[in-house]
């Protein structure tokens, strides 16, 4: 019984790994293996974007701070990365951060979206965008592509 369980677990783990490496390339599709730990394969930084955005904000004092400082839910050790990834993959997230911050502080903010072109050994600011956060929501501010 124990050996059967071990064998099934080992084979399922391998199937989950191959599902995301070989199967997708060979058959163009994945098989749904049902279990949550087999859903996404084993990926760590295998493909990395060459264009990335960094998010910051300025309040009444005009000084720039990382946008992560406006997010109430802590993320010990990875706060900046979490905000950058969430905002990159879900653009509506910026409006959510604005809504929460404005409601909590009753202040207006400027959000800055700085987009960088990343090349081996260096990153260059490619464009910069300003969004204004107010009780009316998040709107294009003094936008200006460089």
């Amino acid at each position, binding site marked *: 019984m*124990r*050996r059967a*369980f*071990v064998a099934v*677990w080992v084979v399922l*783990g*391998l199937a989950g*790994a191959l599902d*995301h*490496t070989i199967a997708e*390339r060979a058959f163009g599709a994945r098989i749904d293996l049902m*279990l*949550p*730990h087999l*859903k*996404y*394969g*084993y*990926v*760590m*930084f*295998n*493909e*990395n974007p*060459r264009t*990335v955005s*960094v*998010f*910051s904000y300025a309040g009444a004092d005009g000084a720039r701070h*990382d946008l992560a400082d406006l*997010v*109430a*839910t*802590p*993320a*010990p*050790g*990875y*706060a*900046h*990365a*979490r905000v*950058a*990834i*969430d905002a990159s*993959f*879900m653009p*509506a*997230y910026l409006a*959510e951060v604005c809504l*929460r911050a404005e409601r909590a502080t009753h202040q207006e903010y400027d959000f800055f979206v*700085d987009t*960088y072109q*990343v*090349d*081996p*050994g*260096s*990153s260059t*600011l490619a464009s910069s965008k300003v969004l204004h956060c107010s009780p009316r929501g998040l709107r294009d501010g003094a936008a200006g592509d460089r």
Partner: protein
Amino acid sequence: MVRPAIDRFFRAFEGTRNAYPVAVFRIAFYVGIALHFFPSLLWFDEGYRPGALRSDEWSEWLFGHFWRFPQRDLHLLAVLTIVACVMGIVGVLPRVAAIVGGIGLYCFASFNALHLQTLALVETWAILLLSMICGGGAEALSVQALVRRWKTGAAAPPRESRLFAGLVLYQVLLAVFFAGVEKVLAGWPFTNEMSIVLSYPRGFLVRDWVAGSSFMHGWLVTHFATWFTMLVELGTPIALLFKRTRLVALVLYQAFFLGIVAMLEVPPLFYFTFAFGGLLALDDEEVDRLCARLRRPS
């Protein structure tokens, strides 16, 4: 010929082993979970108030039916989940902790994955599921073990079933190895991919000291980081299985994960799961030697 090979393979999952590596892993794993999930569960309204922005990464059914769950019940589930994780840390009824904690964490990750970086959780589900099925992990460094020792006065070194530890080690090393395979398939040997990762601007994935250090963006350092990553990911999961190469592999493995967490903004759960999971490769003799060295006065 085949039978002894099969027996040798299954021996890693049968019998008992020194309980300390499993206990250290249990504590680290649940501390990682606490650091990862407790902020979302304590700042509850940020992620789980009606109308909150949500993302669907796990159970579609739970995501779709989120609005049907009364907020009072969700608060209760959050409290139970936190209690279960604390039980996991201190080592009380580890199987119950895994069942209650696992169900709660999976529900909350399914309701809203926005604050819970998805790829950090893949191994978490596997280990929680193993803990639900196999139990164990609280024979040492736990309240349960303390109470047992107090009641029985047993002085024998604690032992733990190999099943849970063996399968956790398999799961962790499988993920590390296939992360390496994915990198080879993505073309890492030809692209010096770490020269991109380490060149990200301040505020995106890299820690501030890396973004501000021109040394870390140099050709030599980035090539070393790229090849070291592939060497560790493809080599150490195999080298850790053999006694002759285990210690060297473990040093490289630990250096690799320490390097990741020092250079990149990754969730602590990622580090705790992988770095401490690697310690399960140590056999009884190696653990005894390590304990003796730690006990020896400097």
